[in-house]
């Protein structure tokens, strides 16, 4: 039986979830539909949700990868792109696009916008919530699509699947010109075994940190290193709410997508192409935005370092070969899905 403290924590989390939903719905009106094709969403369709900002170069690859996995409709919020990304998305027949001029940070890094879209369109569907620089891979993804995966998750009674965000980087400086057209032809290296994790006792989410960013930029302040664990694939209910990005959500039982009894649960990996050559420009932009708003802050060093085009590659880096390799390294698991 749960102790009083656990009950109290559960009660507080319930109110927190209600608060998150309320503030998201309050911001719903700030989303302007640009091309609303949601009428064409079939019952049981697998949906993808994303917020984009100036990511035109990544969008074709992002859409193609997840289309091939069986995402039937993309619901995307464009946050004031000025690179033509919005126009590109509006032309896609399987994309519904909203735009907003609100600040990303003011909307909890876009989570408020996604939460209201998820509640309105995602209820009852399997929903994949991603960033445009992430691509989901999982065991057998090369021959079994998301429909196969989610059917099996349904069969085995799993409401969500977790994934590790795996930072990919190039052989040389992260600013060096890209080799090949697709970011993932260029970013083919990763850190295989320096991830550390803790479990939040009440929310039950696993917080994983590590990888090249922790090693190169946060060696002196590891606590501040970015969180790499996510729960991107969920059979959505309109009462659910992501807490911060897609690292954790409420109700908390959904966060426990990992096995705690020594076994292995099914998990995926989000191949993260943040370290494309435009990272320098993005960091400069981010620095300017931050300084306008809050002045110098704790992450300035990080963006300064990124602006200068560091090399993340080292002799111990691993070259990406596919999901079987990730499974052998323990970064993803089939979790009994043979």
């Amino acid at each position, binding site marked *: 039986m749960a102790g009083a403290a656990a009950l109290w924590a559960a009660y507080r989390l319930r109110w927190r979830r209600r608060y998150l939903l309320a503030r998201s719905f309050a911001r719903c009106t700030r989303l302007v539909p640009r091309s609303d094709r949601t009428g064409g969403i079939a019952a049981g369709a697998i949906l993808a949700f994303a917020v984009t900002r100036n990511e035109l170069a990544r969008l074709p690859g992002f859409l193609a990868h997840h289309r091939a996995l069986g995402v039937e409709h993309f619901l995307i919020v464009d946050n004031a792109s000025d690179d033509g990304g919005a126009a590109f998305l509006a032309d896609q027949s399987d994309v519904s696009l909203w735009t907003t001029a609100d600040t990303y940070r003011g909307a909890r890094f876009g989570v408020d916008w996604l939460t209201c879209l998820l509640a309105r369109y995602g209820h009852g569907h399997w929903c994949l919530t991603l960033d445009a620089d992430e691509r989901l891979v999982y065991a057998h993804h090369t021959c079994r699509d998301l429909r196969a995966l989610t059917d099996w998750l349904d069969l085995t009674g799993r409401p969500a699947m977790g994934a590790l965000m795996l930072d990919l980087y190039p052989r040389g400086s992260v600013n060096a010109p890209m080799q090949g057209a697709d970011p993932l032809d260029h970013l083919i290296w990763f850190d295989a075994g320096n991830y550390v994790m803790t479990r939040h006792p009440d929310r039950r989410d696993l917080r994983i940190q590590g990888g090249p960013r922790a090693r190169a930029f946060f060696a002196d302040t590891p*606590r501040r290193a970015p969180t790499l664990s996510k729960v991107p694939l969920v059979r959505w209910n309109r009462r659910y709410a992501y807490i911060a990005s897609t690292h954790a959500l409420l109700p908390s039982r959904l966060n426990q997508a990992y096995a*705690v009894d*020594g*076994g292995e649960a099914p998990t995926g990996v989000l191949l993260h192409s943040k370290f494309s050559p435009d990272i320098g420009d993005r960091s400069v932009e981010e620095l300017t935005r931050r300084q306008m708003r809050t002045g110098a802050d704790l992450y300035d060093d990080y963006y300064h370092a990124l602006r200068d085009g560091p090399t993340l590659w080292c002799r*111990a880096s691993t070259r990406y070969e596919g999901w079987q390799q990730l499974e052998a390294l*323990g970064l993803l*698991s089939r979790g009994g899905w043979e």
Partner: protein
Amino acid sequence: MTLGFVMLVHTAFDRAEQVARYFASHGCPVAIHVDGKVPPRRFRAFRDRFRTEPRIVFASRTRVEWGTWSIVQATQAASERLVEGFPDLRHVFLASGSCLPLRPVGELVAYLDANPETDFIESVTTDHVTWTIDGLEEERFTLRFPFSWRRQRRMFNACVKLQRRLGLTRRIPDGIVPHLGSQWWCLTRRTLHSILNAPDRKATDAYFAGVWIPDESYFQSLARRYSTTIESRSLTLSKFDIHGKPHVFYDDHLPLLQRSDCFVARKVWPRADALYRTFLDDNRPVAKRTEPNPGRIDRVFSKANERRASGRAGLYSQARFPLAPHGSVLTCARYNVFCGLDDLYEEFDGWLDRHLGGSVHGHLYAPERAEFADGARIAAGCLSDSATLRDYRPTQFLTNLLWSTRGQRQSFFFGPRDNQEVAGLLVHDPNATLVVVSGAWAVPMFLSGQPIEEIKVEVARLQRIELDFLRTFRNPGVAARIHHWPLADFVAQPVEKLQNVVDEINGAGPRRLTDLPQMRDLRGFTDFLQRLRNGGVQPKVIGDVALFPDFADAGRKAP
């Protein structure tokens, strides 16, 4: 027309239709039971598709719930419908809508022709069952189960517990010997007829209606009563995961399924187009057929189940985060930790490297940085030597290092100057071998020649830390192999002790140690200890000073 099929359908109607038509077109009648939960309009639309197909008939519908009597009722109804409608059948095969024949149905008919009197039904006594979940084997037959296992799990468990405590049991009717087995069978018409028309069927059914998961025991027990020849195996290949859910077959299983030579497989993903296309095409090239041979598939799926259930020891990831790691294996491979020997011997790491191989690191938990072997700044898996990164999650630093170097023996040094947070892991981990010469950290201090007044605070601090470490050796749950000698005991007879350690790590062999490491010059060490005492620091971890060889007389000890 000697073989007929009973087919239980609740979803994926297109696939069920495809398979049913395949059977019917090969002369095998099919009686379909559609779950009562399917809306009437949907059911009628499905039934009407077969209006022109006389070999496909429908049974009256029952609402089927997993694990309950309703599924047996559905099977009975469809079986009766089949046996009445097609009196010249010899075998009846129970299938589901997600079953797929892996061999042309003609081969199955020929196989049954060769075994005309045989009932193929897995049927084993409860003592021999190892595959049930929740451990309810015998008790399925003797307890009552008023609550649903799926929907009312807590009540279900409480009810079982209560009956166990009160010793309540049901009587098993005479003439029934409980047997369990796969739900999917192929019975002779005669056996099936005897079961369905038994004079005491009403009483039997009433009893089994209260048994838990009767679809795994009703026909399996009653076949024993009426059959003349039982082959206790199912002709349907079906694999189950650790929670009793069926494994699903996908297009990429095609080669595996082809090689199995089984007749029917369950369950097949409805969208596995290639499987349906391949296996329902009787004109495909015929391989050389043998007896059904599911061994290879068994191995593949057993491995997946084991990975699901037990995981990979020593892996911590988004998939595996054991909550109660103590009492289990904490790391993925054996490793060795040496405390104090590097202080006592010159170039002990080089000596270890020659005798143990693998990677011999320095002090991985040194305050300045992690001293990886060969002075590397970054180790396998991109593990950084940064002390702050390491000390953020000190135990996961070690589990990560061991995970990334699987297959290579890892050894490192540890001492009271190092971050002690990892000590708990070391002593509780069955993979660890700890070789501890306590008090050896005093040797470099002695050799430094610094005045006692300058070092005594540091001596006291290190001694306190080491005492805390040594105390954990007596904790409950210590699982590491620990070799601990106070410095004085070790120095008195070092060769034999080193030999034991090397033998334990390498496995005992006939080889005796010939090249021994060079012990540092301990002349005057006893005097140093006395000066420490005089300075107010009582050495507690060095052992009985009287055991020290008289270095002053013997000169430099060559052990």
